[in-house]
Structures are given as C-alpha cells and as structure tokens.
C-alpha cells in the first residue's frame, strides 16, 4: 500500500543526565561516555542500584508555569524537550494543526508517595500531566498519552505517523517521551530481579539484567506529498508496526513471534540490503536479548550490524523509543553505526552481528526494534532522504 504522505522528522531534542541537546548527547555517547553509576541509600530504597539519574539541582527539573505553578520533575523535562524541539522547528505549538502525543509508563507516579488520599492524587493521572505539558504551550487539542509499557515511545511514533497520514487536520505531531525514576519503579524492578548490580551488558554472554535511566526526548514529525523539497539527509519514517506475542504478560515469546511479525510488516516491499543497522531494544536481560536474536535470525537479518544504547543511558522506559530513534537518526546521517557499549563477548540464543566499535556504513536506512511487558513488540523503519 502506498502512503499518501511522506512523514519526516522536522526537529528533535534530548535532555538526559549526559547532556542537553540531541547532538550533544550523540557526541557524548559516540565518545563512549555513560552516566550509569551506583546509587546507595537513594530515595529511601534499601538496596543499592545502578542507574542513570538527573542531578537533583538541574534547573530543567524544577520548572514552573508563567503563573508560578511548579511543574513536577516529569513535566519539567518533558516541557524542556518539547520547547527546544519547537524552537528548532520554528513551529508555533499553540496552533490547532499541532498534536501532542506523550509517551510514558509511569508519569508522576511518585505523587502516590506524597499523598495517600486518592482525591488529592490528580497529578498522578497521566492525562492530567499531559494536559499540563500541552497547556504550557497553549496547544488547543487534547493531548494523547500512549502507555504501552516499554514500547510506548515507538507506539507513540506510530500513532503520530497514522495521525499525519490519515487526518488532514494535523500538519505536525510532537512525540514526547519522558520518564523519571522513583522508589516505586526501582523497587518494582528490584522485586522482579531484573536489575543488574553493575553496568548492563546488552547481548553479552554474561549479561545479568538491565539498568534504569531517566530522560526526555521529543521529535516533531511533519508531512509532505513529495521528498524533493525536503532537505538532503532528512530522516523519513517509512513504516511502523506493533504486534502482540499473545504469550505472556511479563516475559517475551521464546520464538520472538510478535517481534518477527512486526519486522515482517515493516520490511515487506523494502530492500533490506539498504539497512545500515538495527537499533535493538537490547535491555541486557537474559530473555529479551535472546528473544531479539531469535526474531532477527528468523527474519534473515542476522548479518546486519546490531546495537543497543542501554549501556549509555540504561532503560529509559517511556523515553527509550523516542530517544533511541533520535540518536540512531543522527548516526545514520553521519554514516556511523554506534558501538553497543557494555557488550564484551556477544552471546545470545542465536548469533548476532553486535557492533563492538563505532563504524562506517553505506546504508541509508535503519530499523528500530523494541519489546515490552504486556507482550507487545514494535518495529519502525527509517530512511535517509538523499537527492544524489
């Protein structure tokens, strides 16, 4: 099926503990830096944990509205990312042809600790928080919150794609992925025995769990009926798909069933020789990385370089799908495949071509994969617009 519009990235912005700005973050990780570290006695959590957390004094975590109303940490970083993306795109966020889509798993869940009374927990409602974020920019539309566990950031981009493709009212969609950590989230992952006591090792034979991280990332998607007028090196979203394993709520399918179907949906009618790299989910849990290796092999894509960015940032939950697409987009524009930091000796159920060093590529496309609780899997396909 031919799409009516080409959906492309107009601008983007990342705020993470590693830095502010998409290019700043890209340059920092391309030098192999990470903010992952051990936290002990933090937020009243009895056990120490390894994570990537914002400096509590960072002014971008403590923003307030023009009326002086304080925003939460979650809202503050989401607003910071969105504001900078709008400035770069030179788009007015208060226009009715702009739609806000917000990706998060837990939003302001830390509010539940501060207030035990359900009637005073309005800030914990994701839609309420989303309205404060969109309201900050005086956007007139109801913001949509996508809460699809770990795949939320990619689900949100697929929703943006569909909104632009099929609704002529919208010219631009901003996808904001944001997550802050809390005692709630960390204790839960600890109870699941999913956390690594050291820096995570995606796709490594000795991987022993994931690290969690905080970040916010925003991408503004716009549409065009042709690509000739778009600048060279514009990143175009070609296709996206979400498929359910229908297998288990907290573990991936061993055969990679849902992810394989999602890959098939986005790569059918596409020359996969063009794919420069696969930016996988690569959380460094035993099951996730094995499952991805099986799905990638079953799809016949096992020779394509694969990386995971979790070794730089940890798993940033609702922000992950958005932030990792931005970093992969810049890598593609630089004809670079980023190293999978933390991987020492690749060892998954099926062999993968894990990228161990930053390397050059001639490809003009990348595939983003992501999977999560609830049995959901997503695949997104992006290409580089080149006139030559």
């Amino acid at each position, binding site marked *: *099926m031919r799409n009516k519009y080409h959906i492309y990235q107009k601008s983007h912005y990342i705020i993470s503990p590693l830095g502010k700005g998409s290019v700043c973050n890209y340059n920092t990780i391309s030098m192999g830096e990470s903010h992952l570290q051990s936290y002990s006695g933090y937020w*009243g959590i*009895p056990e120490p944990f390894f994570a990537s957390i914002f400096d509590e004094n960072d002014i971008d975590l403590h923003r307030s509205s023009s009326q002086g109303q304080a925003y939460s940490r979650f809202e503050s970083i989401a607003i910071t990312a969105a504001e900078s993306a709008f400035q770069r795109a030179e788009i007015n966020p208060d226009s009715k042809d702009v739609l806000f889509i917000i990706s998060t*798993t*837990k939003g302001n*869940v830390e509010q*539940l*600790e501060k207030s035990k009374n*359900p009637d005073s*927990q309005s800030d*914990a*409602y*994701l*839609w*309420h928080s*989303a*309205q404060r974020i969109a309201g900050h920019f005086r956007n007139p539309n*109801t913001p*949509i*919150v*996508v*809460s*699809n*566990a770990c795949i939320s950031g990619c*689900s949100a981009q*697929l*929703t943006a*794609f*569909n*909104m632009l*493709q*099929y*609704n002529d009212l919208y010219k631009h969609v901003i996808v904001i992925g944001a997550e802050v950590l809390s*005692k*709630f989230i960390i*204790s*839960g*992952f*600890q*109870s*699941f*025995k999913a956390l690594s006591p050291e820096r995570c090792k995606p796709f490594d034979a000795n991987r022993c769990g994931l690290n969690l991280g905080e970040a916010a990332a925003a991408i503004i998607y716009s549409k065009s009926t042709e690509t000739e007028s778009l600048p060279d090196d514009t990143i175009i979203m070609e296709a996206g*798909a*979400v*498929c*359910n*394993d*229908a*297998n*288990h*709520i*907290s573990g991936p399918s061993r055969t990679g*069933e*849902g992810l394989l*179907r999602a890959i098939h*949906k986005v790569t059918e009618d596409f020359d996969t020789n063009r794919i420069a790299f696969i930016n996988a989910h690569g959380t460094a849990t035993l099951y996730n990385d094995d499952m991805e290796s099986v799905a990638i092999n079953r799809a016949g894509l096992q020779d394509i370089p694969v990386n995971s960015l979790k070794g730089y940032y940890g798993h940033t939950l609702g922000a992950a799908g958005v932030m990792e697409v931005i970093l992969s987009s810049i890598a593609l524009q630089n004809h670079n495949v980023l190293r999978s930091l933390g991987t020492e000796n690749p060892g998954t159920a099926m062999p993968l071509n894990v990228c161990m060093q930053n390397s050059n590529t001639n490809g003009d496309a990348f595939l983003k994969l992501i999977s999560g*609780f*609830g*049995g*959901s899997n997503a695949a997104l396909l992006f290409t580089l617009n080149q006139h030559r």
Partner: protein
Amino acid sequence: MEQLFDVVATCRISDKEVLVNQESILYHSRENEQDWLSTIYHHIGLQYPKFFKMDRLCKAGILGAELLLKDYTYDHETVKDDWGIILMNAASSLDNDRHYQETISEDNYYPSPAVFVYTLANIVTGEIAIRYKIGGESSFYVMPDFDEELMRELLVQAFNADPKLTHILYGWANVDQDQYDVRMFFCKRRGNIKTSINNPS
C-alpha cells in the same frame, strides 16, 4: 468517507449492571457478598482460573472481552495476527499502583513482583491478547474521559494502517476507586474478508 468497519458486538459493565448488545444481563445486588467482578465471572460461566490472580483492571477487561466474544466460534488455539486490540482509559493502572505503593512504605517494605507486574496500563491488553490469541496491533491510550470522537479516530486509523486487520476489539476500560466503567466494542472490517470467525448461530 466510506465506512471501513461495522460494530458487531457491544458490552458495558458499570457499577450497577452488565449489558450485552444494549440488553441488560445482570444487575448488581447489594445483598451479594461476593465482589462485583467475581459475580459477573460466575454469572457468565467463564472458566479461566488465571482471572483470580489479576488486578481489577485486567479482570474488568477480560470480562468485557468475554462478553463480546462468548457467542462467536473462532480459532482459540492459533495466534490471530489479523485481530487487534486497542483500549483506553483515564486512570491507567492507578488502581493497582495505589495497591503497590502500600507495599513499599518505609515501615512495611515488601515490594511484590506479583503486584508490580500489574502497574502498567497495557497489561490488560496483554491479558486479553493471551486469552483470545490476538496477535496484531495492541495499544493502550490514556485520555481524560470517554472521548468518542478521539477513540473512533484511533480505531479508524488502525484499520487504515494495517489492511490485514479484520477484527479489532476496542473500547474503554477504567477502574478507579471501586468504580468500574467498561464500554467495549467488537469491530469487523467491511467487505469480503477472509476470516476464521463465525457469527453467533
């Protein structure tokens, strides 16, 4: 624009009653000591022991799906990638989040993985996908209230985006402070589609 699909079944679960295709099938009687969701489970004769491990949002969602599908015959064994599920609500998983929060207080810190797993809104779509072997699109959205226009738009786009989708289970499933509001719909793409489902006899 041409209508893409038909709504072939509807159900509603409120605090007071259960309706299927707009006909009331059960009233909530105050004398009944069992909780309301278990009462519905037994009334409709559902046999799915896993139900009792679930949080209330998942229970409500499973009941909604069962009410929509119980009169149809279809392949229960094979994952159907031409079926999708799209749900929305206002409270995401807050009902269970409050429950989990109680397990991590300073004086009583026993975080439970069995409770934590339900602190994600889309676990309900996952539970329904497992029970009914739905392998296509699965999404969960959060919005202030039952916004018919926005919900319908997301549904239409899902049908548009994936021409292979023949059926979508979609709707509203909200559980918040002992209040239940489930309004779910079973939708079938129009036209001459190849499908494994038979209409109720």
